[in-house]
């Protein structure tokens, strides 16, 4: 094991053994204690809110699930939300008849139709929403995921070729501007400091 001189004892002590000194250990203990205190409080307060009973939000949740997953599993969770929306008494601005039609559409696997009906069912509720503050979503309509690029292939090709040119050009310049020696060459050079210039000229003349 590597050793280093210890000023207090005048001897050498293993380095690994001195990695944590008593003073530092106290700091470490304080930090860890603080961390555990926060952690304890965190676990204690990790309780929670309940599921919403607001009708239009339940309908939005159904729409949210359908926007991400139109498989049988997605339809199933959406159906649960639709059922909740039909059961809740807090249904201001919600057209219950439309929600029922949406449920029927979901049962018939007509996802797009169900989405349209749900959106219509809550249109009055979302139109009456005040400007969003705090954590409010402010969501009025729920569109499906949008691809990150418009469907015009021509500019994409130009951009791809320009990018490739930059990548190659930049890499070439970075290679050209590389340091004069590799780390291995530097190591060899520095190993024989007295002989440095002679060695440099040897490397240049093959």
């Amino acid at each position, binding site marked *: 094991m590597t050793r280093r001189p210890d000023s207090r004892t005048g001897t050498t002590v293993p380095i690994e053994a001195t*990695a944590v000194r008593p003073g530092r250990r106290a700091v470490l203990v304080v930090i860890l204690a603080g961390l555990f205190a926060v952690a304890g409080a965190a676990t204690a307060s990790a309780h929670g809110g309940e599921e919403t009973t607001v009708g239009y939000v339940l309908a939005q949740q159904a729409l949210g699930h359908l926007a991400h997953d139109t498989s049988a599993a997605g339809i199933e969770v959406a159906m649960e939300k639709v059922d909740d929306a039909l059961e809740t008494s807090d249904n201001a601005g919600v057209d219950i008849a439309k929600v029922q039609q949406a449920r029927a559409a979901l049962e018939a696997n007509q996802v797009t139709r169900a989405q349209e009906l749900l959106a219509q069912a809550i249109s009055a509720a979302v139109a009456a929403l005040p400007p969003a503050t705090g954590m409010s979503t402010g969501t009025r309509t729920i569109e499906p995921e949008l691809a990150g690029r418009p469907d015009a292939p021509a500019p994409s090709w130009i951009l791809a070729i320009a990018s490739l040119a930059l*990548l190659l050009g930049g890499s070439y310049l970075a290679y050209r501007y590389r340091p004069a020696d590799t780390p291995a060459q530097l190591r060899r050079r520095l190993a024989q400091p007295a002989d440095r210039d002679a060695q440099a000229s040897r490397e240049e003349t093959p």
Partner: protein
Amino acid sequence: MSTLRADPAISTSPNTAATRPWWRRALDVVDDRLGITALTYPVPEHANNIAWSLGGITAAALVLLVVTGILLTQFYAPVPEEANASVRHIVTHEWGMWFVRGVHFWAAQAMYVTAALHLLRVFLTGSYKRPREGNWLIGVAMFGLVIFALFTGTVLKWDQEGYEALGHNVEVANLLGGGGLWFSPDFANRVSILIRLYSAHVVLIPGLIVVLFTLHALLVKRHRISPHPSLTADDESTDAPAAEPVEPFTHHLRRISALGLALLGALGLLAVTFPPPVGPAPVEGIEVIKPMWPFWWMFTLENWIGLSGILYGGGALFTILVALPFIDRNPHRAWRHRRVAMTIASAIVAAIIVLTILMAFTTAKTHLGM
């Protein structure tokens, strides 16, 4: 210190001034006022290696993020009712902006990756040791800010992914009690939290990073670049050996610029090949989307022990990073002589990788309000 190799930028003597071309003399006039040639100070050659250029590449990513970010702010509407629609508009209607957005998206992840690699390089070469502990701490602060920027950027899209990330953040802030107040919607309940996070994303975070980076760079200059541990017989030395050849710092800047161009090309290719989609507008009370991959390791912990897993995981990592230079008093810089530090670091890196991979095979679970 050894002498510089012959370099015209450095070895100009006043005697030759009359024979210099007119444009050189014009540059001299500018330089007398701005002192640009002061940048040709010598730096040890190993500082031009890729490993020692990772900090510079991170800075190049930051420049790309600022430029593309400024363009995006021209078209982005930071209010909940409009935010998602405005991003869709950016993608479909503003000429070329889908590409700018794609470069911004990929540059953010590139900056995270290069900052992490830079951190690892500084760790592996023991460069955080005396006298560079302060600069290590500035680095840790910047790393935290980079992660915070990734998080706020995700929220700005105001789609389900961003909103769920925000929900997690708010609940973790609640766990912290008063300490998390700023993240709570109750802090200023007359404005949307989106507007506050927007101000953090476009002003506070980049502003702080720029200020801290200025300090970081000044300290690198003041302490001089750390030695390459394998180039010196004495791996406890705080400086590169006097015998190591040097190059002007401008050569370093030149190489970083070239690497920055290559980075822009790579990000452009990613933006064309994998343009980031825009998800559906958010709905409260559902959890259907996984967060961005840099956060996956913390979310695996969350799946195991609940929301507080994020707090423990993130808290532990940053506590270790902050404490490192104070706990690790081993004066050696070569990894071979730092067995304890290397073992612990490998365990941490392996844990983060394994936790990340586990999340790749998991579907989104419900944690909020649990």
